[in-house]
């Protein structure tokens, strides 16, 4: 098990390394080739003189060769900004002030603030939205999927098929706008936007329940479908017949045997979806004015804020890699056959 874990972590580290390289190349040299937006120029403010640009270039270390820039970037990512860098970028400020401006992911062009700070401010919003939404969609889809599989072609099964079709074909921003119009604007049941930290749980839930539910409906549709088909497959397996031949009750057969096996691919999909959403649920965050990672991505892209965009891409990649490792571990815990491979 330990060897399994170590192998997965090494694999994940390699993926992250490749992503850093890709991000560096895409947001550095390639971006500069495609346009003449030099980062130095963007930093330097409106209508800068060539001397100003030159000075900013030196300040940011952009005058150094690319490989050296990459090594500096990687070093900063792993161990944090060096003292020399801090001294160069925020002379005369206190360490705390400087930490707010210079971080592992670099500094934003648009604001005098580190990308780290931007991400860590936005992340709780996205995390809250994702977790709450995931709870809702699992609570809807797992029972619905199981019951549909128990009684194929029944009224419940057919209704859930309709639900799946609607859920999959309605885009979240459309469903989101409908929900906002009726539940926030017309009847004022829920607030139209905003986020309240979880330190106020009721306010947190009150502000998040609408976007989380809209997001959950779309995922629930997919999960109902996969749960149903997995359960149908498993219910036809020989070991299910064995369980029945032992005299196991229907509930026991379904829950302890069939669902236990049907869960494996669902867990895999769930882990990957969580990872993906934690990298920012752009449409839903923008629709509901939630200032999470997705919203931050849009802001950064609009302002040509290259370091922030690059930071988010890298951050999302790391989250997805971690999600993958967790999925592998959970699967290994659930399926003894995986542990031996």
């Amino acid at each position, binding site marked *: 098990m330990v060897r399994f874990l170590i192998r997965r972590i090494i694999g994940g580290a390699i993926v992250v390394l490749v992503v850093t390289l890709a991000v560096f190349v895409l947001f550095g040299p390639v971006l500069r080739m495609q346009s003449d937006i030099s980062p130095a120029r963007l930093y330097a403010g409106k209508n800068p003189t060539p001397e100003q640009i030159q000075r900013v270039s030196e300040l940011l270390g952009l005058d150094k060769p690319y490989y050296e820039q990459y090594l500096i970037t990687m070093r900063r990512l792993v161990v944090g900004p060096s003292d020399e860098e801090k001294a160069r970028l925020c002379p005369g400020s206190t360490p705390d002030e400087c930490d707010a401006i210079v971080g592992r992911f670099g500094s934003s062009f648009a604001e005098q603030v580190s990308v780290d700070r931007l991400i860590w401010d936005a992340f709780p919003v996205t995390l809250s939205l994702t977790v709450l939404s995931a709870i809702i969609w699992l609570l809807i889809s797992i029972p619905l999927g199981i019951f549909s599989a128990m009684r194929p072609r029944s009224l419940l099964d057919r209704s859930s098929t309709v639900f799946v079709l609607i859920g999959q074909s309605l885009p979240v921003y459309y469903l989101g706008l409908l929900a906002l119009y009726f539940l926030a604007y017309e009847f004022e049941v829920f607030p139209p936007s905003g986020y309240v930290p979880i330190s106020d749980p009721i306010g947190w839930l009150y502000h998040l329940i609408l976007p989380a539910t809209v997001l959950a409906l779309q995922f629930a549709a997919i999960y109902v479908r996969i749960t149903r088909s997995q359960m149908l497959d498993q219910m036809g*397996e*020989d*070991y299910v*017949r*064995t*369980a*029945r*031949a*032992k*005299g*196991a*009750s229907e509930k*026991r057969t379904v829950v*302890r*045997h069939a669902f*236990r*096996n049907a869960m*494996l691919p669902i867990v895999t999909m769930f882990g990957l979806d969580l990872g993906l959403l934690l990298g920012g649920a752009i449409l839903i965050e923008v629709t509901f004015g939630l200032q999470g990672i997705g919203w931050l991505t849009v802001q950064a892209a609009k302002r040509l804020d290259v370091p922030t965009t690059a930071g988010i891409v890298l951050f999302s990649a790391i989250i997805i890699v971690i999600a993958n490792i967790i999925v592998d571990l959970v699967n290994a815990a*659930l*399926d*003894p*056959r995986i542990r031996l491979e």
Partner: protein
Amino acid sequence: MAPLLSVSGLHTTFRTDDGPVGAVDGVSLSVDAGKVLGVVGESGCGKSATSLSIMGLLPRTATVEGSIRLGDRELVGMPDDQLRALRGAEMAMIFQDPMTSLDPVIRVGAQLEEAVRIHRDVPKQEAREMAMKGLASVGIPSPEERLRSYPFEMSGGMRQRVMIAMALINRPRLLIADEPTTALDVTTQAQILDLIRDLRTEVDAAVLLITHDLGVVAEMCDEVAVMYAGRIVERASVDDLFARPQHPYTWGLLTSLPGRHRAGERLHQIPGTPPSLLNPPPGCRFAPRCDFVMDSCRADPAPALSTHDGTAVACHLDAATRAREGARAARDDAP
């Protein structure tokens, strides 16, 4: 004494998109405690449908009519929860494919304990004890360690032993074995058959052995029912079946056995294929493939099972022809 299992006039019909399929069409059979009844026939003849009807394990699309009596209880029409209480306790079943018949993600010990605790309110420790004894009784070495194995860590023969231990753990009165050795290699087959025979005597259970292997029948059974296209065509003691087979289908089966032909000679085979059960021919269902077919064979009503010299046979042929042809089919020694 009344037989332990007595099936009469069993009709099992599957609802399909193309119409009803009568997989079992009026089967009657009975088994006494401590005896083995073999049910033979080719694939799709209704052997498995018969056994699943008895266990009540058919899918929802199937309807069962007729009578199935276990001891003094009628199983047809019995409420689900009562039937469930009998399954695994009074009657148990082992299946054809041991590779897929155990839950892949649960330890073998837990699966055995589950079989105990579904029916008996015993402490976990005691169930564990019984599971261990069960594994020991089917000849699995170091049973205590094996309780912690997963099915994928065991061979096919080993898994079938586990299945047998699981089926017998509550000492059922009826054991149904549906082709228990088909998926196993020859040496393992013999071991598993020996095991079933030994345990049958020990537990004094009635055994219904479903097979398509006449060799297995000769070795294991007291009585045999030969099925063709959903019906029993011949029912006899195992000695009579091999010495004086009465039905043309049985003759075909016996003369098709490998080992009964001379070297270099082609194996005998019954021409044609079994009829579709969706739309079976009128009269005797074997008529289209029978060498001795007469006009009366192709018309309803089909010949009924009637008993001659202890053998029940469903055939219009006269006794003299049957005796002559039966002797010809049985000319060589039984396998």
